[in-house]
């Protein structure tokens, strides 16, 4: 069996793996860094063709970005590839707020994070710089920044200006949503050309981790093995340290062994906990890093609800469909009021009123009649409003191994079931009512009309499974992601989050990872 050796072995080739590798390579240039990714690599040259096929035929813009038999019940994205879910992402880079880290001390709810807000804020700035975030400052004092955004915000489109004019009448302030998209040439990537297909950016103006990996590979700073599925971490015979990752090359089916001084799980909220549970051994029968019994527990995310509205404005779908407005007004909840926190977003509605083939009188509509009929019915513009709201997990909000579902190697696949803690269950109705009232306030302000409402049936931007904390009895890793049970095993990104806040999580995953990178770089001995 081929054996590969390095100083740091990063398992997972997504956004946090890329950021970790980049920063480690800067801080410790002589470090041998190996990245293992179960999925395939995409070439930059594939993007324009794949985009075109996706537009014309609805084909997957990232063909082969999932592994057929590597699937989890309850997982919201199947992407496994060099670049991870951030190949597809919309590029939204919202920060959490201090309240997310202080739920227990401020509101008597759930837990506090083992990290100070001001320290996290420093790493938010670094994450924004490395990803290349364009944005404008928030008007709320609680969102104070220590550094400006690296780039000015994307221009508000005609559509968004109409929607902002409308929403501003409610008295709720909206602003541009920060995006990891270049508004000027930045970090070797071009300015955004507004191609309108951010799920596959044909130019590279939107940050995606494959750029970082490509650059690190060209500089010979990392070794990257794609199509390499890690199946088990192996413990030293006497000490509680990890000595190897056992993997299989999915193309050749050849077994591989990766030995390293430090191992970092950067495999996202599903596969990080999964690998720890799969790696159970006689000394850790419940899985590695799992003396607390909390690996795979406290799986979290935020719930969401929204409305589609019709308003008296000229909206042209497709001007920049992934770009929207945000209000951070409800990120904070006064401590003397019932707890409810949420974000608030507005987008143009990308879908349009259907084209009919006959009218109510049964008249056939073809030729110019189709257009006349449609224009008569589709006079107003439509928009989508959505709120992510804060919910907290119960301990048994969990990822477990499902013996009924196995991959081709016989490994049980994960099953994720989200459950809320008691306080969340108690406040759920009230939170939803508050959000509905906010929607109504906006709609009412300019005589718009609600077309329909929706409620999310899954938790978005999921996280958890290896939550961080100072107490090894109630957490899996410390604030740097170092597991309490194994000094040379770290978990970074989404799995370490105790709770998922009430807005997109990627920037937070990256910020925490950059902090972990400093710790790993500082302590590793060559």
């Amino acid at each position, binding site marked *: 069996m081929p054996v590969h050796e390095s100083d740091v072995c990063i398992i997972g080739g997504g956004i946090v793996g890329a950021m970790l590798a980049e920063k480690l390579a800067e801080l410790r240039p002589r470090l041998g860094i190996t990245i293992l990714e179960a999925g395939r690599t995409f070439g930059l040259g594939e993007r324009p063709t794949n985009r075109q*096929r*996706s*537009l*014309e*035929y*609805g*084909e*997957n813009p*990232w*063909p*082969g*970005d*999932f592994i*057929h038999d590597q*699937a989890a019940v309850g*997982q*919201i*994205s*199947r*992407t496994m590839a060099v670049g991870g879910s951030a190949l*597809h992402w919309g590029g939204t880079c919202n920060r959490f707020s201090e309240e997310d880290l202080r739920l227990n001390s401020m509101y008597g709810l759930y837990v506090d994070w083992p990290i100070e807000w001001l320290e996290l804020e420093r790493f938010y700035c670094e994450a924004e710089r490395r990803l290349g975030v364009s944005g404008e400052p928030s008007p709320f004092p609680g969102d104070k920044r220590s550094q400006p955004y690296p780039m000015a915000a*994307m*221009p*508000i*489109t*005609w559509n968004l*200006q109409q929607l902002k004019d409308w929403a501003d009448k409610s008295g709720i302030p909206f602003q541009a949503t920060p995006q990891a998209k270049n*508004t000027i040439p930045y970090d070797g990537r071009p*300015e*955004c*050309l*507004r*191609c*309108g297909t951010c799920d596959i950016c044909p*130019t590279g103006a939107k940050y995606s981790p494959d750029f970082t990996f490509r650059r690190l590979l060209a500089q010979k700073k990392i070794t990257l093995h794609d199509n390499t599925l890690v199946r088990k971490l192996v413990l030293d015979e006497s000490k509680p340290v990890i000595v190897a990752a056992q993997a299989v090359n999915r193309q050749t089916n050849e077994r591989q062994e990766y030995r390293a001084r430090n191992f970092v799980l950067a495999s996202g909220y599903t596969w990080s906990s999964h690998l720890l549970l799969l790696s159970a051994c006689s000394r850790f029968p419940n899985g590695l890093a799992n003396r607390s019994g909390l690996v795979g527990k406290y799986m979290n995310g935020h719930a969401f609800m929204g409305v589609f509205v019709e308003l008296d404005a*000229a909206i*042209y*779908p*497709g*001007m*920049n*469909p992934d770009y929207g407005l945000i209000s951070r007004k409800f990120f904070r909840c006064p401590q003397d009021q019932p707890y409810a926190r949420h974000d608030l977003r507005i987008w143009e509605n990308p879908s*349009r009123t*259907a*084209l*009919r*083939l*006959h009218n109510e009188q049964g008249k*056939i509509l*073809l*030729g*110019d009649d*189709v*257009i006349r009929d*449609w*224009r008569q019915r589709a006079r107003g513009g439509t928009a989508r409003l959505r709120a992510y709201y804060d919910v907290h997990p119960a301990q048994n909000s969990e990822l477990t191994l499902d013996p009924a579902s196995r991959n081709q190697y016989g490994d049980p696949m994960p099953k994720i079931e989200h459950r809320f803690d008691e306080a969340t269950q108690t406040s759920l109705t009230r939170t939803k009512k508050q959000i509905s009232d906010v929607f109504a306030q906006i709609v009412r302000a300019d005589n718009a009309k609600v077309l329909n409402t929706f409620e*999310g*049936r*899954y938790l*978005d931007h999921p996280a958890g499974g290896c939550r961080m904390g100072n107490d090894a009895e109630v957490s899996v890793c410390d604030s740097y992601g170092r597991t309490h049970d194994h000094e040379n095993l770290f978990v970074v990104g989404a799995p370490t989050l105790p709770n998922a806040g009430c807005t997109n999580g990627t920037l937070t995953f990256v910020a925490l990872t950059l902090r972990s990178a400093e710790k790993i770089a500082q302590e590793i001995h060559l």
Partner: protein
Amino acid sequence: MQRRNFFKGLLASVLPFLLPRWTRVQAHQAAVQPVTMHELARAVLPESLGPKRIQEVADQFENWIRNYKPTAEMSCGYGFTREEATPPSPAVHYVDQLRQLATAAEAEGAPFTKLDGAMQRGLVGRALAAAGLERIPSRPDGKHVAADLLACFYSSSDGEDFLYNAAIERAACRGLQSSSERPAPLKDGV
């Protein structure tokens, strides 16, 4: 065996679109000549597009059919994931449907092209109703060639611009500078 028959049928139906026009004529000499895509396009697309654009849209649809890949991988989705592939070519029954239109026209006493626009649209409308179509689908789905031609056009960037009479150009990489401006009306509405 079933699979072989399926592909044989599919080939027979799609082949006419892949071959030059003269070959198509030869292949169907004995039968009623199907209405051509250009003839259908002139009947169902908006006249205000103008004859040149109508012809181009028909050509683009034929091109779309030619480049269609059945069983191509689709995105697994977000939220509730599932593996999906593109369905068989929607063009499987197009030749039959175009021939049925020609037959229906002959029953009216003239070839399809000789009927006036209202009569042509009447025939197409009845065929669409028989296929259970009330709306133009968001993408061609094989229920009827006329609806799919319209779907292909109106789901395109050009089609959407035509609907809104505005140069949104959503499939183009348009740059950030113009994004704050209201999309300009199309020249002559086209």
